Structures are given as C-alpha cells and as structure tokens.
C-alpha cells in the first residue's frame, strides 16, 4: 500500500516536472516572439540630444547602441592578406623596399604602415613619423578628424559672426564650413589640431576660461549622418566641390545615375549630392569623402581632381594642367634621387571602384564594407567597417550564391595577380631610377632628360596609384592591370631613352640591344 503511494507520488512528481519544463519553454517562446515583434516595429528611442557639434560619438551611441557598438569594433579588425589590425601595424617600407625609392624625398619614405580601422585614424596619424618628423599641413585633418564643426566655427569667426555653441548648431551652414575649410587648408598640422579642441564636441563641458571646449575625435557619426533626421549625408567640402566638378565634366558616369539625370535636365546651378543623389549613391559618396585621390599639402587648398572624370589619366590630366597659386607647375614632391617633380597618388578607392563591375552593377561601398545584417528582427547596416573578406557570408553571398571558398579563391586570384604586376612595375621603376641616375652621371643635359622625366612621372604615378589603393586591384581588376601595364611600359620607355641619350657610355649590352632595336625599326620603315 505504502509503496504504491510512493510510486504514484513519484509519477506525479515526474509529470509535474515535465509540465513545468514545458511551461517554462512555452513562456520563453512567448517572450521571444514578443521581443521579435517589438524589434520588427523598429522603435527608436531618443534618449540623448545630438546636434551639429556632436563630434563625440557617445551620445549618438545612446540612441543607436547597435551601430555604436559596431563602430567601436573598428579598433579590432582581423588581419587579412593585405591589411588589418596590429598594435603597431607592420611597415610597408620593410616589406616592399622599393617603396623607399619610389617615395625618396617624401615623408612616406620615412614611415608607411598597413592601415587600421576607423577608430584608430586620428591617433595613428598623430604618432606617425610623417607627422612627428616632418611639418605637415592641417588639411590632412579634413579626413582624419571629425572637423566640420571646427570649419564652421572658424568660418563664422572669419565672417565676423559670433561662433557660440547655439550659432554652431543651427544646421550645417555650407558658407561658414567652406570659409573655414579654405582658411584652414594652408595652416600647419599642429595649429589645426589645436583648433579641434577649441570646438565643443557635444560632451565635454570646459570650465570658464579653459580654451579646450571639446576633444578631438576621429571620423564619427556626424560625418556621415544628419543629427536631426539621421539620414546619410556628405559633409566634406573637398567631396562636395569635387563631385560638382565631376558633374560639370562630360565624363560618362554610368554608375552615378543622379549625375546623368542632373546633366539631362540641363546642369543648372551646382550638383548637390545631399539633395540630388540616390540613397544607393550616398552609400558610396560617404566613403568617397576620404577614400580618394587628393592634394592636401599647404601650397593650395585641398583639392579632389575630378574636373575631367574619375579615371586615372583624367585625374593625371587635371594635375598636369594645375598651377600653384604662386605660379609654377603642380607637383607633390621632388624625387630625391633624380630631381624630377612627381605626383603622389593617395588612396583612390572611390575612383578605382568607379571603373569596376561592382559599381557598374549598382553595388555601393557600403554593400560590401557595411553589409546589412539582422539582429533579431531588426535590419541594420553593419558599422563595423572592414574588409569584406572577413565577412564573406553577409558581404558577398547576398548576391553571389556560390560557396564561400569559391569566393575566397576568386579574390585571391585577383589580388595575387595584381600583386605580381605591382612587383613587376616596381622592378621596372627601380631600374628606371638607376638608368636616370646613370644618365645624369654620364652628363646628359637637363633639356635632354625632360621627356625622360615626363615618362618617369607617368610611370611612378601609375604604380603608386594601384599600389596605394586599398584593394590590391579588386575594386576594378582589369583597370588595375591596365594601369600597371602602362607603368611598366613608361618605365621601360624611360630606360631605353636614357641609354639612347647616354650613347656609348650606356652599359654595353643595353646599347647593343637599343642599336639592334633601331636597326629593326629602320628596316621596318624602309620596307
């Protein structure tokens, strides 16, 4: 009898436990469904006020925790074959010694390292030997700092207006920003850096009499977003002026339909990306504010060379036709070994992307570098801006419905081929430098060397254009190969011309080769 009771009690306890477990599960599911439904309503709770001076991303992060958390992760990118994160990123100069010769006489020959994530961009600039050992222009802060409120403050002051915090938060104020941008462009780095901390950043509250009103921040939320509406926008004067020049050119821009539309409507006034561009274009334009070719030393205002179009030789043509305000032909630096005035390509990602299949297919920078992702039932654009190779599923497989490994292999083929072409172009470039030095030592006159110097500038610009571009050819693989092939060709032409000018003093075997080539050429002509 008592054992029966015990057994029944045991069964009852077991059943109760099962029912409890199932109830637990059902309630958990209920709560989960509830949460997902809440997420799908996409609520936005404004808990902190952000304005046109909020360069500190912290208050934005209170309103948009997911995006802020992603942004903070940019300190922590993994290393890919061609870039990534380190406490002290590896030196490109040590890995590719030819870069020291390419940049001889220019600050990049002192210190040139792999790039790191966005959150490092200001602190890395502050410590590079290019800045600590060489006097740099404040224009560099156009992209490395969240500088627009500082431009606005200086602009307002130069226009004789009072730059109070209230005045600075009354919208973007293009006139004031432009005036500040122009005033700052020719100041030196330290002066402009000091100006940053005199601008309120939305968080720091300085005490009376303290000139430090805010902190200096790397690029942050306000650089791509309108604090009122959160819509994406471009803020950088360099880009706004540059894209207007591009719109006014007659270069075909099949990947930027809003510019074509503006032209079709008669190109009235200025092209304003913030009101005319499509959202998809804006998802590239925000990146194109900085990931481009530009001039940013202090001989003239920061310039994006887009008045002929976005192709490499169109940018080159603008530099060829540019003169400094004090007269004299444009150049970036005098090459120390040869004395030739040459151009420095910066990092023309936006331009090279423009020549590629992804741009032509309507794929923006953000689609690959900030792909959409789902957090529960919410869809957000990842603000962990990084290499798509670290996020292939979301970055590539949204469109490319093939196995991940096939994508990895494809990218490796493109980047390795480009790297091999870069090595060949670099070998040709260093031989060219040797030939020019030899020609100078052999007493070839400067007049005679002038066409050689033109070839040298063209060859070095092309090599640098692809070597410094941050995709190792991926953004437009055929275009990258074409540019490197031209670089090799110009280097070799320059070498041949040097040896010809040197005549008998050229290395014997080379002279013979050139004589032979001449003989064949004259034979061909006489035939």
């Amino acid at each position, binding site marked *: 009898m008592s054992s029966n009771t015990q057994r029944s009690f045991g069964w009852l306890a077991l059943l*109760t436990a099962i029912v409890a477990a199932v*109830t637990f599960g059902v*309630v958990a599911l209920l709560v989960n*469904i509830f949460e997902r439904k809440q997420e*799908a309503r996409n609520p936005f709770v404004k808990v902190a006020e952000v304005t046109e001076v909020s360069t500190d991303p912290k208050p934005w992060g209170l309103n948009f925790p997911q995006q802020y958390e992603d942004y903070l992760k940019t300190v922590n990118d993994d290393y890919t074959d061609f870039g990534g994160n380190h406490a002290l990123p590896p030196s490109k100069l040590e890995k590719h010694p030819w870069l020291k010769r390419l940049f001889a006489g220019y600050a990049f020959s002192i210190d040139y390292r792999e790039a790191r994530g966005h959150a490092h961009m200001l602190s890395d600039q502050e410590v590079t030997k290019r800045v600590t050992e060489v006097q740099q222009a404040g224009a560099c802060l156009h992209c490395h700092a969240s500088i627009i409120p500082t431009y606005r403050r200086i602009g307002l002051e130069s226009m004789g207006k009072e730059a109070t915090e209230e005045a600075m938060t009354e919208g973007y104020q293009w006139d004031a920003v432009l005036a500040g941008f122009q005033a700052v462009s020719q100041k030196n780095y330290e002066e402009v850096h000091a100006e940053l901390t005199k601008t309120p950043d939305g968080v720091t509250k300085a005490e009376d009499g303290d000139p430090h009103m805010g902190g200096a921040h790397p690029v942050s939320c306000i650089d791509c977003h309108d604090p009122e509406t959160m819509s994406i926008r471009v803020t950088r004067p360099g880009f706004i002026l540059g894209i207007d020049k591009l719109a006014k050119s007659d270069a075909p821009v099949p990947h930027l339909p809003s510019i074509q539309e503006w032209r079709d409507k008669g190109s009235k006034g200025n092209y304003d990306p913030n009101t005319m561009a499509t959202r998809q274009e804006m998802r590239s334009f925000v990146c194109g504010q900085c990931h481009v070719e530009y001039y940013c030393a202090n001989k003239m205002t920061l310039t994006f060379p887009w008045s002929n179009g976005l192709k490499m030789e169109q940018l080159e043509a603008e530099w060829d036709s540019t003169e400094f305000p004090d007269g004299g032909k444009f150049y970036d630096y005098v090459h120390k070994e040869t004395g030739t005035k040459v151009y420095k390509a910066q990092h023309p990602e936006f331009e090279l992307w423009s020549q590629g299949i992804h741009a032509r297919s309507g794929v923006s920078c953000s689609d690959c570098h900030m792909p959409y992702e789902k957090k529960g*039932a919410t869809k957000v654009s990842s603000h962990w801006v990084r290499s798509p190779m670290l996020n292939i599923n979301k970055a590539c497989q*949204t469109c490319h419905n093939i196995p991940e490994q096939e994508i990895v292999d494809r990218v490796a083929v493109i980047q390795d081929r480009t790297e091999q072409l870069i090595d060949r172009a670099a070998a040709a470039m260093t031989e060219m430098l040797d030939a020019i030095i030899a020609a100078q030592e052999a007493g070839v006159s400067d007049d005679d060397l002038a066409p050689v110097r033109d070839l040298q500038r063209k060859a070095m610009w092309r090599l640098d254009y692809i070597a410094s571009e941050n995709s190792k050819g991926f953004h437009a693989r055929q275009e990258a190969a074409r540019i490197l092939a031209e670089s090799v060709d110009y280097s070799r032409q320059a070498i041949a011309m040097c040896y010809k000018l040197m005549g008998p003093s050229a290395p014997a075997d080379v002279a013979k080769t050139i004589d032979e080539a001449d003989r064949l050429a004259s034979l061909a002509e006489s035939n």
Partner: protein
Amino acid sequence: MTAKPSRKRLFGPGAYLFAGCLGLLAGVGTFTFGYGKGASYLSNDPKTCVNCHVMQGHMDSWQQSSHHHVAVCNDCHLPHHPIGKWVTKADNGFFHSLAFTTGGFKDPIRIKPRNRRVTQGTCVHCHESVVHSMLPDAAGRDMQSCVHCHADVGHAGR
C-alpha cells in the same frame, strides 16, 4: 489501529496541484499559439512566411517576381504530394523556428540540399510539359538545377 472511516478521495492533493499546473500550461500554450499566429502555419497564405521577420525580403521580392501571379511560397517550397507536403512543412517549421528563436543561422539564409530538391521537384511538376525532353531518363539521375539559371523567377531576395 482503527482507521477513521473516511470518504475515499479519487485524487490526492498533488494531483489537484498537477491539474492546476496543466491548466496553466494549457492556457499559456493556447495564448502563445494564438499570439504566435500558430494556426496560420496550417494555411497556404504567403504572409505566414513573414511571421518570421527574416523572410521579409523574400516576400517583398516575390511580389515583384514573375511567379507572383501563379505561385505562392508553398507551391515552390513544399512537395505537391499530399503526405510529403505536410512532412516537409513540419520539418521546415520546426527547424526554422528553432533557428530564428536561438539565432546563429547564416544570414543571408541559404537553402538546404533537401529543400533545394523539393524546389527542383516543384519546378518540374508545373513545367513538365515544356521540360520533359530535358529530364534525365531515369529518376534520380543527375540534372542541372532550374534555379541555377532562373535564379530570380521566384524571388530575387536570397
């Protein structure tokens, strides 16, 4: 040892407690079933598929697709066999809700080999009169997947 005669109770107190719990579970369960739109899973309505928010893009692009007027989700993603249909529905329903509840699934989502076979079967089911000469001569032989080329006919959101 004279036991006090008492009315024999059919169930002990534990049983009442258990019954109470069971009733609570039944109540919460019914509510969850209703709140989670459980009944809709027995229907053929494409809106059911966006109960799970992951499918919103697929739903949106299906409405733009060439199949929009002739086929709903179930027409392509469930076998047309009366039993196979419910087996697949149960299988997908369970694993989809497991994945979406616990997270950690691939995003963009990828079709499983089993479901790919189902889709292939439904393509052929409707288009057999057109494609029969292209089919393998015996069941199960290798053939190219229809959606390999016609990737956008159902929905471009993959």
